[in-house]
């Protein structure tokens, strides 16, 4: 496994703050306000990003935005083939998703398979009016017909690279690094 802390820094704390602030404005613009919006982060690092976005939208619009946390382990398509079953975290969505405009937040969008799992998970909880997708990093290489509505930064990568998003809430600091992989194994993110 490559070291998550070494590698090229492609975003620093200020870059992340600006990107998240811009996405917050884009969400408000596209939805003409914050009515009926709820933000759901995909565990783990989508969750702090979702909380930041909700806080910003509240500051800008003055309406409170519910935040949820979604674990997609039980919906993954590689459950039967992975050597280790993904650890199951607790999904915490304490509002009804039906008829809401859900903004799904992930730190990196890559193959699209995590997003696919998240869509299925959300559909099991109700019938949202809309689901939109926000990602801090879009690194390409989609394997499914999925695209993000809001992107912090487009980052062209090769499949042999890893992208690691570090956040204050989970890792102590805000930064995004890109790490070359030594072996031929496929990147985690």
């Amino acid at each position, binding site marked *: 496994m490559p070291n998550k802390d070494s590698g090229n820094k492609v975003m620093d704390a200020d870059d992340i703050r600006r990107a998240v602030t811009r996405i917050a404005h884009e969400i408000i613009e596209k939805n003409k306000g914050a009515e009926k919006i709820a933000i759901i982060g995909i565990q783990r690092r989508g969750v702090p990003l979702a909380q930041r976005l909700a806080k910003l939208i509240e500051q800008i619009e003055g309406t409170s935005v519910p935040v949820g946390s979604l*674990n997609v382990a*039980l*919906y993954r398509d590689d*459950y*039967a*083939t*992975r*050597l*280790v*079953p*993904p*650890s*199951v*975290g*607790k*999904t*915490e969505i304490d509002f009804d998703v039906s008829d809401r405009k859900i903004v799904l937040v992930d730190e990196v969008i890559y193959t699209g398979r995590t997003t696919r799992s998240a869509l*299925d*998970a959300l559909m*099991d*909880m*109700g019938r949202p009016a809309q689901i939109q997708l926000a990602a801090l990093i879009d690194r390409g290489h989609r394997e499914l017909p999925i695209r993000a509505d809001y992107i912090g930064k487009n980052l062209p990568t090769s499949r042999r690279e890893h992208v690691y998003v570090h956040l204050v809430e989970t890792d102590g600091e805000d930064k995004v690094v890109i790490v070359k992989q030594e072996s031929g194994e496929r990147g985690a993110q």
Partner: protein
Amino acid sequence: MNKLDRKDILGLQDMTQSEIQLILDTAISMKEILNRPVKKVPTLRGKTVCTLFYEPSTRTRTSFEVAAKTLSADVSSIAAATSAIVKGESFKDTLLTLQAMGVDLFIIRHQSGGAPHFAARTVKSHVINAGDGMHEHPTQGLLDMLTMLEEKGRLDGLVVTVVGDILHSRVARSNLWGLTKMGATVRLAGPKTLLPPEVDKLPVEVYSNIDEAIEGADIVNVLRIQLERMNSGFFPSVREYAKLFGINKERLRRAKPDVTLMHPGPMNRGVEITPDVADGEFSVITDQVTNGVAVRMALLYLLLGGGSNVGTA
């Protein structure tokens, strides 16, 4: 640690602390699914689970079935009384027949201790012990621990008093192995005739006076008096047992003020526990049932997950 490195769940005696912790952590996450309007996730689609019960059971078998179905596995349930077992088919042949039909995981309850271990050696499929004789009932031990963890926020340092027929109780054995591994102190209390021989060699405190055993306890776990086994004079009468060992309000006052009262069910109200206590403020008996489903979901998930080379016959 996020993988159970074993094919079968046969007992808590040979499990490590980190394995138990992983199961409990996974079960806490699974509980959320049970509170949803649509209680179904697609995780175990295409997996086949078979419950094979040689003893009667309502809650354990139903609990496993609900757990498997919530995770989208297919379940077939076999009760000895209505199967080819009454035609004389042996345990081994029954297992091999079912394995040949593609059963990925067996859930086995048997009146003989060690039967699930035999099954685990016989089939390539996974095996979960749902109670074997007087030996172990690991999923009950796990759901008891999950309930205690939810009530107290920890297991380490808890004082747990297990009261009743320790001799015949696989629940008591799974409780003591699991709890002592997690750092709790286990007190066993019951009439001397219902304590197993060599009980002093177990890592527990043994009491034959119930009031002393309850003094200062965080948890009182009341076992069922197995009336069907009580025909050989273990105690003079059910009434005398109720008087000397039955858990009532007065006895429970000796425990910590925030004591949690548990019972694995089915209850004999008025024998080992008085109805007012069973339905009272300290009782978490129905939470135990819900936690049973969550723990069994966690085990099915952890055993059937991953590209393991076992499970497909």
